[in-house]
C-alpha cells in the first residue's frame, strides 16, 4: 500500500469506477430532465416523483412475480432474467403513462401561460405526488425489492491487476478451513449435549477462527489490486449508455425527432408547418418518463434502497444539477454531467483520508463544481450559450 499523507492510492482506480457507476444513476435520471427541458423549456420538477412511482411499480411487479417479502422469507426462490425484463418493461410503461397523464392534466392547461406558471405547477405536481403517495403507497415499514428477484446479484466482474501475495492467500485458505472445522466441532458438541462450559469454550474457539478467516479474506481482497464491478451496476452503466445512444438517434435521425427539434426551436412555426405539437410533447413526456422508469427499476433492484414516497427527491435534485452541469437540453451533456457528479462525489470521499471530515461536504463540493463550470460556461459543459441580440 502506497500511503501518501493519509491517501491510499491503491484504491484510487476502484474509486474512479465507483464514481462512474454512481454517476450512471444520475445520468439516467438527468436524461429525462434534459429531454423535457429541451423541447418545452420546462423544468419538470415532478420527474423525481415519476422516478419514485417507477420504483414502486417495479416493487409491485416483483411481488406479483412471487417475490413478496412473505414469499421469500426464509427460502431461496430461483429467478431468471425474464423477471428483470418484465419489471423493467412494467416500470417503463407505468412511468410513460404517468408522464403523459401529468403533462395532460397539469402542464397542458398552462401551455399558453407565462413560463413561471408552468414551473410553479411542476413544483405543485411534485409535492402532490409525494404526499398523495404517502396516503396510498406502502411505506410502513419502507419496502425494498427482494434481492432474490435478481439472479445476478452475486455476480461481479473482477479485474485483477496484481493478485495478493501468495502467503496471505494461503493463510486465508488455511484459516477458512480451520474455521469450518471449529464450527463443526461446536455444532457437534451442541447436538451431543456437551456440558455448557465445554460448549462455550468451543463457541469461543469457533468464533475466533471465523474472525481470523473473515479478516484474512478481507485482507486478500484489499491487497488484490484491481477493480470490482458488480453485474447490476455494470448493467446500469451499459443501459445508460445504450439509452443515451437510442435517444440521440431518435432525436437526430427520425421524423419524430425532427419534429421534436422543430418544436424545441419554435413552437408556433412548427405548428404552422404542420407539426402536431401536442402529440410531439406527449411523446417527449412519454420517453422522458419511461427513462425515469428504467432508472427507477434498476435503482430499486440493484441498490435495493427501501422505498418511500420521498424517494425521488434526492436523486431528482442531483440529476437536475447533473443536467444543468452538462448543459440542460443536451443529451450527451446529461450523461457527462451525471458521470462527472458521481466521480467528483466519490473522489471527495476518497480525499477524506487527507482532510478528515471532507466527505460530509461532498454535496457541497459537487455544487461548487457546478458553479465553477457555469461561471466559465454558462450553458453547461456541452450546452451552447449564444449571445442574444437585443
Amino acid at each position, binding site marked *: 500500500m502506497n500511503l501518501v499523507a493519509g491517501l491510499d492510492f491503491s484504491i484510487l482506480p476502484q474509486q474512479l469506477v465507483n464514481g462512474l457507476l454512481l454517476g450512471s444513476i444520475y445520468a439516467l435520471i438527468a436524461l429525462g430532465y434534459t429531454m423535457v427541458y429541451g423541447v418545452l423549456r420546462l*423544468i419538470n420538477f415532478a420527474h423525481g416523483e415519476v422516478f419514485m412511482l417507477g420504483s414502486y411499480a417495479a416493487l409491485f411487479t416483483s411481488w406479483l412475480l412471487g417475490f413478496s417479502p412473505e414469499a421469500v422469507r426464509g427460502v431461496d426462490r430461483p429467478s431468471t432474467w425474464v423477471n428483470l425484463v418484465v419489471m423493467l418493461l412494467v416500470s417503463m410503461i407505468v412511468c410513460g403513462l404517468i408522464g403523459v397523464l401529468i403533462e395532460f392534466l397539469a402542464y397542458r392547461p398552462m401551455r399558453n401561460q407565462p413560463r413561471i406558471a408552468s414551473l410553479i405547477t411542476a413544483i405543485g405536481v411534485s409535492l402532490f405526488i409525494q404526499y398523495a403517495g404517502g396516503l396510498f403507497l406502502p411505506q410502513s415499514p419502507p419496502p425494498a425489492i427482494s434481492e432474490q428477484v435478481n439472479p445476478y446479484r452475486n455476480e461481479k466482474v473482477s479485474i485483477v491487476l496484481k493478485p495478493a501475495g501468495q502467503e496471505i492467500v494461503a493463510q486465508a485458505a488455511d484459516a477458512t478451513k480451520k474455521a469450518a472445522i471449529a464450527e463443526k466441532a461446536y455444532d457437534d458438541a451442541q447436538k451431543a449435549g456437551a456440558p455448557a462450559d465445554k460448549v462455550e469454550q468451543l463457541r469461543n474457539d469457533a468464533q475466533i477462527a471465523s474472525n481470523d478467516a473473515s479478516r484474512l479474506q478481507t485482507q486478500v481482497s484489499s491487497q488484490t489490486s484491481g477493480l470490482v464491478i458488480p453485474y447490476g451496476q455494470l448493467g446500469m452503466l451499459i443501459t445508460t449508455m445504450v439509452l443515451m445512444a437510442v435517444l440521440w438517434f431518435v432525436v437526430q435521425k427520425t421524423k419524430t425527432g425532427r419534429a421534436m427539434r422543430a418544436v424545441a426551436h419554435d413552437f408556433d412555426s412548427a405548428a404552422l408547418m404542420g407539426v402536431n405539437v401536442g402529440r410531439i410533447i406527449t411523446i417527449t413526456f412519454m420517453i422522458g418518463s419511461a427513462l425515469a422508469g428504467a432508472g427507477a427499476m434498476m435503482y430499486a433492484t440493484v441498490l*435495493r434502497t427501501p422505498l418511500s414516497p420521498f424517494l425521488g427527491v434526492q436523486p431528482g435534485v442531483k440529476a437536475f444539477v447533473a443536467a444543468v452541469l452538462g448543459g440542460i437540453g443536451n443529451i450527451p451533456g446529461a450523461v457527462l454531467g451525471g458521470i462527472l457528479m458521481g466521480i467528483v462525489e466519490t473522489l471527495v470521499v476518497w480525499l477524506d483520508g487527507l482532510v478528515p471530515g471532507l466527505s460530509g461536504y461532498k454535496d457541497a463540493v459537487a455544487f461548487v463544481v457546478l458553479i465553477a463550470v457555469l461561471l466559465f460556461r454558462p450553458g453547461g459543459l456541452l450546452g451552447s450559450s449564444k449571445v442574444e441580440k437585443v
Partner: protein
Amino acid sequence: MVKLNKTFATTFGLTAALALGIIGASGCQDNSAAGGTTGTAGTTGATAGGTTAGTTGTQPNASPRPTPQKDGATIGDPIKIGLVASQNGDLKPWGDDNIKGSQLAVDEVNAAGGINGHQVKLRIEDSNSTPETGKSAAQKLISDGVVGLLGEVASGITQQMEIVAFDAGVPLVAIGATRTDIATLGSNFFRVCYTDDLQGPVMAKFAYDYLHLKSMAIMTDNKQPYSVGLSESFRKAFEEMGGKIVDEQKYQSKETQFSSYISNLKSKNPDGVFLSGYFTEVGPIASQMRTAGVTVPLLGGDGWDSSELITSGGDAIVGNYFCNHYNNEETRPEVQKFLADWKAKYGGVPGTTMGALGYDGAKLMMDAIKRTMDAKGTKSKDLIAALEDTVDFPGVSGKITLKGHSGNPPKRALVVKVTKTGQSFVKAYEPDEVMKK
C-alpha cells in the same frame, strides 16, 4: 439535442432558486425521515445534538430534577390519557405501531372492566413527525383534560412535548425516545425504553468479549444525531476495553451507493464493522460490503430493527448482530401474551419494537393510575408520584423500575442475530454489566 433558449438565463436563475428550496426541504425530510426509522431515533429536526449528556439510567438521583408547579388534570370518568404519535410524515411506520400497541393495552384494560370500574379513553393526536406539531398536539390533549401523556417515538418531538407537559403538571411517559438528557427537563418525565448511553457499551462489550473482535471500523450516518451519538458511545466503550477503532466513515441518510466509503474502509483491515445508522442504509451497505469483498462481522444498534432489513440487506445481512429492546422469540410470558393479543387484534407480529414499547407505556400509565386511585389520589401530580414509585413493572420489553432513576429506567438490552426469517436471540445484558460509573 436542442440549442439553448434565450430565456435560459432567467429560467435557470429561477429554477436554481427553486432547486435550492427543494434541497432545503429535502434536508428537513432527511432529518425527521431517518430520524424516524426506528422511532428510537435520537432526534428530529429542532433538537439535533449530542446524546451523551445528562444522567444515566443506573445512577439513582444523579441530579435533582425540577418539579412542575401545577397539579395538572383530575382523574375523571372516563379516565382520559393522551397519546401523541406520528400518524403522518416520515415517522408514520413507528407511529402506527406505537398507536396499535397503546390501543391494545387500553382495550385490554377496558375489556377487563377498566380501572376500578372506570373506563379508559385513549385520546390520540398526530404529531405529523415534527416537533412543532407534536408540541401543539400535546397542548391540545392537555386542554382536553388528559391526566397523563404518552409519546413520542423520537426524541426531538418528545422534548417539545415535555416542555408543555411540565408547564401543565402532567406526567409524560416517552415510548421510544432514547436521547439521554431529556429526562433532566422535569420530574414529570419517564420513559419505557433504554437510553443511548446503554446501546453503545452493550455492543462494544459484545464485540470485544463475545465475538473477540479487537479492531473495529465504524460507519456513521452523519445526518442522524442518533447515529452520531451511538458511534461515539460505541467508540468510547470499545477503546476503554482495549479495542482499537481503525477507521470511521461518515455517510449521509438516503445515500444509496456506498462503495466509495467501503473502498476506504476495506484498506484499513478491520476485524468487524459497527454500523450505527438505520436499516434503510444498513441493508444496502451490508450487501455492497459483501460484493466488495469485506466479509467481517457487522454490528449495529436498534436502528436496524425492521422486518425490512432482511429484504434490503438480503443474504449479506444474515448472521450479523444488533442491539434491541426486546425480541419476538423471547419465551417470557409477557412477550407471549402480547404477541398472541397482537395477532388476535391486528394479525401478524409487530414490525418494529414500537408496538411493544407503546403497549408498555400505556400499561405502565394505567398501572400508575390504578395505584394513584387506590391511594386516594385525584390529580396528575399524584400520578407523577405513583409513576416515580414504579418498581419492577413487568413490561413486554423487560422489567421497568423508575424509582430513584430520574425517569430513565435501567433496562436490559438484547443482542440479536439477523436470520433469514427475522431475528434470533443471542445474549442479554443487564444494565449493571455494561454501565459503570
